[in-house]
């Protein structure tokens, strides 16, 4: 009971901080700018935008994942917040799991909202819009998990931002294949595969990020 209350306060602190510091809105603004630029680049052909728009919005979501990387773990690690949590008997895995939940709360819903707005620019509607939002809703926990894992792995390194980008791209390929694939195939099996990969990434995040936090402390 006490541990659960503690975890809830930790998550609440993180979420409040990301919304208050503007860290939440940075990916949203980036996402909307990318969606705005795309029609300028390929021309205003509605058919072309309809065919490629969903994929572009998916790539923009992956890139938006990179933006908050340096704020996820590093500041609290440097400030000794995690040390104090460990002294209070929390495990690294619990800290990482709490960070995953709080990061998703600050990242997932705003990104879905931005995707809804951006799909208007691409002319996506009806089933295509529904599939895009469903695939992003399934994938955002995994993207949040990847961000937490990479932030924990690169915490304390110089040039962590660039390294984070290099690490994210290969790990996000399965999500992109099935996520963007679900748009063209309009089949539920791609969404099911996406959900399976998403669950896997979410499940390993507390352990991978927890191990990274432990390694950086020792």
């Amino acid at each position, binding site marked *: 009971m006490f541990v659960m209350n503690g975890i809830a306060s930790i998550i609440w602190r993180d979420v409040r901080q990301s919304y208050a510091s503007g860290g939440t809105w940075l990916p949203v603004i980036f996402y909307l700018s990318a969606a705005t630029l795309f029609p300028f680049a390929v021309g205003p052909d509605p058919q072309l935008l309809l065919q490629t728009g969903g994929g572009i919005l998916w790539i923009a979501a992956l890139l938006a994942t990179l933006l908050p990387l340096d704020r996820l773990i590093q500041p609290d690690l440097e400030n000794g917040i995690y040390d*104090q949590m460990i002294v209070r008997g929390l495990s690294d895995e619990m800290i990482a799991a709490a960070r995953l939940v709080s990061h998703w709360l600050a990242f997932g819903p705003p990104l879905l909202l931005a995707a809804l707005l951006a799909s208007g620019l691409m002319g996506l509607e009806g089933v295509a819009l529904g599939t895009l939002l469903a695939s992003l809703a399934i994938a955002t926990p995994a993207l949040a998990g990847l961000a937490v894992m990479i932030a924990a792995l690169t915490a304390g390194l110089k040039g962590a931002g660039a390294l984070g980008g290099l690490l994210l791209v290969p790990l996000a390929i399965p999500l992109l294949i099935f996520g963007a694939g679900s748009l063209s195939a309009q089949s539920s099996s791609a969404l099911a595969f996406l959900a399976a990969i998403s669950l896997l990434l979410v499940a390993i995040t507390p352990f991978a990020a927890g191990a990274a936090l432990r390694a950086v402390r020792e």
Partner: protein
Amino acid sequence: MNEGQSTGSSNRLLAEALSCARGGRILFRNLDFVLEAGQAGLLTGPNGVGKSSLLRLLAGLLHPMAGSYAGPESIALCDDRLALDEHLPLAQTLRFWAQLDGKDNADVSTAMARAGLDHLADVPVRYFSTGQRQRARLARTYLTGASLWLLDEPANGLDTDSVGQLGLALQSHLDSGGLLIAASHIPLPIAFDFTLDLQPLEELEACL
């Protein structure tokens, strides 16, 4: 949780043959000591000899290379890291730790008063001076209500009056049956039950 650590609820800290290595170098070897309820230990020694590492080890943040220790479950660590949100007012950021420690707002006020910070409760921590930051760390430590306090240079940056105030807080912790270990170059105004003088291993071996 830690290999070498068997936590008991007893108010007693027992270290047996503790050794610690950092970065491929042995810092200290075969350290034995016992700290009973109400006792205070002082750590001395030159820079880099492993005082902070010993405190982090006792806090459960590092694993001993060899040896074991057993002590109280509730521990407070006061080291050079602030562990407070700089953009938030002091009272608000202390309240976060109060929630984790199962304390309430009255305890936060008491801890701030003991550290002489009650007039700064509504000031964001980033505006604090060096000494005020140190007092904020101490307030966070007082707030825990833990039985074992591990203090790394607690008097750093404090003025004379604040060192006196620190002494009062430490003494009342000891009087209520608490334990504490402090590493300090500045004389602290409490009576220590023992002093652990760490020396670099190479020099020790040269003497033998």
